[in-house]
């Protein structure tokens, strides 16, 4: 089985506050297939804990969580 490393969709949630980064990501996930990668860009400092929790409740894997200056980047794989 091949695992995709290419990002299928990017959700730009920069400048958006809770719960928009999560809600927009959930909406984006609906258009994707299982195994697809979603990249989320956010500036909400609460998003780090939100995405960790959200990945636990939904089962989508949080592949990567990083920060570059004020921009947080999350990489999620759809379950």
């Amino acid at each position, binding site marked *: 089985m091949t695992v995709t490393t290419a990002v299928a969709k990017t959700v730009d949630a920069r400048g958006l506050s*809770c719960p928009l980064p999560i*809600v927009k990501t*959930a909406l984006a996930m609906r258009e994707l297939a299982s195994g697809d990668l979603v990249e989320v860009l956010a500036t909400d400092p609460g998003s780090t804990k939100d995405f960790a929790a959200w990945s636990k409740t939904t089962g989508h894997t949080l592949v990567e969580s990083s920060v570059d200056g004020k921009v947080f980047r999350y990489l999620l794989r759809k379950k």
Partner: protein
Amino acid sequence: MTATLTRPALPTALVEGLDDPVTEGEVKAKELVIVAESGDLERTWATTILASTAAAGEMKVSIFFTFWGLFALVRPEVRITGTNWMQKMLAMMNRPGIDHAKLSKLNFVGMGPWMMKKLAKQYGVAEPRELLEMAQALGVRLIPCQMSMDMMGITPDQLIDGVEPAVGAAAAIELMTNADASLFI
């Protein structure tokens, strides 16, 4: 050895969900029911934030709109609801539509909500209407209360698209009894 289990007779509303495909090892989706009773801006905000977030977390979410909460479902272009003068007066004193919700405190003839929405925009917070639309897109069920519809003279065609047929208190109680969490906002 194989054991045969007979499913006990359940009320129809409960049985409906049982045929949903649930894969082996997968947990049944948690359910959240919100009773939206208040039409106040801050409470409508809380309702729409929680509903959209729970739906994003793959919970099954239903909102039961009753009393002033029902006004949030009225179409934006509908100015006055009601058929008799009292119902019309109520709608005149308290304009229906989610964009016209007032703050319970510090409303100052609309100055409070205006400032609140201005701040929301500045801080990237979505307005209740946007959150309600996203909630709908994520499958949140919007259920109006029949009694409130009758008492306030609101007709189904005055409600936004995608709203389910109105139900009574017993149906709302049944939803809450079967849910994992219910909130009265």
